[in-house]
């Protein structure tokens, strides 16, 4: 059994230190994912990350170990983000959002974040899960609780939008 797997078992049995080990292991990618979802709002992303871990700790007994622990964690984070977005009316979740930032230059890595911020949250999430976090499409679909076809269309649409943005801002 790996350290992470044994920590999952011990954490499920109520061992807070073991859960702390899991938090330390997953905090960076999870907070990075949430920062991207919240379009760089670090404070909100960290609040959501904390809520995600607290909820994970409460529901740890429900984690069956069928998927990866990380996937389960991202699923909680995604649903937390959606709840927060609806509550705060952060941005339209369903409507096409065609805003274009004039200073956006997606050729640079730094500018990728700005370009991603122009996408709808499901597209941003799907692209981040499948590319930056290297998740298989099936797992990403489970995380976002959508059918595989929907996930694939989020990915395709997001990529197309990024390509269009890139063309629009090419010198």
């Amino acid at each position, binding site marked *: 059994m790996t350290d992470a797997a044994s920590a999952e078992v011990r954490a499920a049995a*109520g061992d*807070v*230190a073991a*859960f*702390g080990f899991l*938090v*330390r292991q997953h*905090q*960076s*990618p999870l*907070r*990075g*994912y949430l*920062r*991207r979802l919240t379009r760089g709002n670090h404070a909100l992303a*960290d609040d959501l*990350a*904390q809520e995600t*871990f*607290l909820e994970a*700790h409460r529901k740890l007994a429900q984690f069956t170990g069928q998927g990866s622990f990380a996937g389960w964690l991202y699923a909680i984070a995604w649903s937390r983000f959606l709840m927060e977005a609806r509550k705060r009316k952060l941005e339209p979740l369903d409507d096409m959002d065609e805003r274009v930032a004039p200073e956006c230059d*997606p*050729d640079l*890595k730094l500018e*990728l974040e700005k370009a991603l911020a122009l996408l709808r949250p499901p597209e941003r999430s799907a*692209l*981040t899960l499948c*590319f*930056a*976090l290297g998740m298989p499409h099936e797992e990403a679909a489970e995380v976002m609780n959508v059918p595989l076809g929907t996930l694939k269309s989020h990915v395709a649409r997001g*990529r197309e939008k*990024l*390509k269009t943005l*890139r063309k629009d801002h090419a010198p």
Partner: protein
Amino acid sequence: MSIDDLLNQPLSPVRDDGFTIGLVRRLNASQQRMRLIMWGLLAAGFLPVLAILPFVDTGPYWPDGTMQWLNSQLSYPLGALILLWVWKARFSRL
């Protein structure tokens, strides 16, 4: 660089900066609070019974000889256990 290459770049690492410790502290505090609430509820449930017990003759409610058996067989081991528990808690703090 293509869009896919850009997207494939890993997320920028986020430094822990006390995030984990803060979360573990919060979890410990909430567990302690839960324990306190649980014991508080238990005590609240038992206190009225304990308060009334000296004034009520419970003998008729017990089968014959039960009280005598409880007195002789249980009181000493129970007392020893309580003492042991108290001592253990005190010595483990040293």
